[in-house]
């Protein structure tokens, strides 16, 4: 298992569009990938799950993966979150 932490940077957070991007990215990997906020852990390949996560700007996010390409999966998702999904970043 491999994991890393980051913080949601884009405004207003992981709403519809970023959620879709995250799910698409996670689905590219073989590993099982989860996203966790302090409140909730969800399957990163499930749009419903990521919607339920409702992570707003500033939320701490743990990306965890288990499988043959776990490191690459975590790195890719962390990169995506930190890029702010190409959206405006919070101060």
């Amino acid at each position, binding site marked *: 298992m491999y994991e890393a932490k980051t913080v949601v940077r*884009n405004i*207003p*957070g992981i*709403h519809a*569009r970023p959620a879709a991007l995250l799910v698409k990215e996670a689905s590219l990997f073989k590993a099982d990938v989860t996203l966790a906020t302090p409140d909730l852990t969800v*399957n990163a390949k*499930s749009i*419903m*799950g990521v*919607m339920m996560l409702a992570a707003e700007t500033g939320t701490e996010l743990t990306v965890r993966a288990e499988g043959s390409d776990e490191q690459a999966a975590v790195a890719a998702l962390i990169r995506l979150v930190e890029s702010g999904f190409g959206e405006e970043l919070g101060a």
Partner: protein
Amino acid sequence: MTPKRIVLQGVAAAPGQAIGPAHRLVAHALEVPRRSIAPRKVAAEIRRFRQALSAARREIRELRQRLATGGEDPGDQILASHLMILQDRELQREIVEAIKAERFHAPYVVRRVFQAKAHYLETLPSELFRSRAADIRDVRDRLVGQLLGRGRSSIAHVPEGSVLIASEIAPSEVASLRPERIAALVTQRGTLASHVTIMARSRGVPAVVGVGDALESVPSGEEVWVDGSSGQIVVGPNRADQRRHRHWREREARIGQWLTQRELGPGRTRDGHAIAVRANIDRPEDAALAAEVGAEGVGLFRTEFFFMDAAAFPDEETQAAAYAAVLDAFADAPVTIRTLDLGGDKHAALMGIPSEENPYLGLRGVRFTLEHPELYRTQLRAIVRAGAGRRVRILVPMIGSLDQFHQTRALLAEAREQIVAAGHAAAEIALGPMIELPSAVLMADRLAQASDFFSIGSNDLVQYLLGVDRNNARIASLFSPLDPAVLRAIALTLRHARPSAIPVGSCGEMSGELPGLLLLAGLGIDELSVAPFLVRRTKAILSQVRQRDLERMAGRCLEAEDRRAVRRIVVE
């Protein structure tokens, strides 16, 4: 037997009137009995669920093809997100497991699983995430409808000329609504910020929203009189109602005749006093329509559309392209772009703004953008870039003090320097405040010295001046732009602006409605900005009246005791 006459009050969402038979959209999917299935039927039930899934997916794909808007359209984005939900493997697993474990039939399990998720989202503090619950209910109903073999009565097949009644219009349905077929639209839920409200307003369909549970008592086929200007609905209108509606229709017809007979040039009164008639637009694609109906520029380009459907806040490039698209439609006439007006009833109370006890008195408009200077700078830079060589004005919402205006002016100057430094051409831009807070009215003389123009936002001005929330159906009747207090505030604004010789416009609903627009003209307004479908009509009305008469009338109204007296004077 004549049916009983019932009067219901909702929120006035889009102006105009209609009488027609009610056509109720029924969500059959909501009534799903809990039915157990035999253990040997479980596998078949799961197969049935999978078939319903692919049928629902096919339905969405077909709908997208029919709309064929090519990705950029918010309606299409909504459908794309619904498709993703229907493709969610984890969700399918959850439902399949539940069918196996509980042995209830699929529609019941689907409904329960979706319902739990929608409920969870509805408990969240952020409006952005809460509003996704509507999407989940939307997908749920599509799926359950498939399973039960009966969809919701389709919104695309509403009988012509009927008054559409629904508890709410789902986001995916707004796209397939055919506004030219329906006489009016009434919803139980919904606010002034709903998709359906915005669609109705831009397409000229009279609409009342937020009527509440009382609407459930209106059966299909019952005759209904809808007044989208007052928010009143009369079920089973009597003779007097019919007569009042007929008078209204005759007046509209006379104006309509005028519209077709006359080639309408720039807005002016019969005695030659010029009043520019511009358009209010909500989306870049509205600009072509506005130009086509002869709008003398755009008096209000709302930029909240970027946030509709919880899309992202776009970068400078994307924004500049959207602004340029509007500017392209107007070569010589000015285009007024309003900076982000979030908060209050706007969608993007969404924007991770923590929910506020009293959002209308909260972090709205310029208060929000000054708190998020990066957002503000990006938008200002995009406007400066797109506006090079054009006539652009920037309108700043919710200005309550000179300081906020000066800060905006400084940010704009900075944005301009950055654009020039980056080697782009930059626009010379006029900057003006929206006059919608009583404090701005009282400080208008000083504000005028710092401004290039004023725009009176009558909707909010009425709300803040009279202390009436127009989204609250119980006091909506207190909301009136005809209140003498409102007229005095407008007169004061115009008087304060005069020494600085800046143009003063008005962009609220009052600007396109009788008698509001006559009073605005009489008080000395320079520009009226109205929905595109009202542009020709507003010009036609102006061309029939004399400025001299309007001034005399407005003068008398300023001395009137209450709105009833104002109405009497205007009717004379």
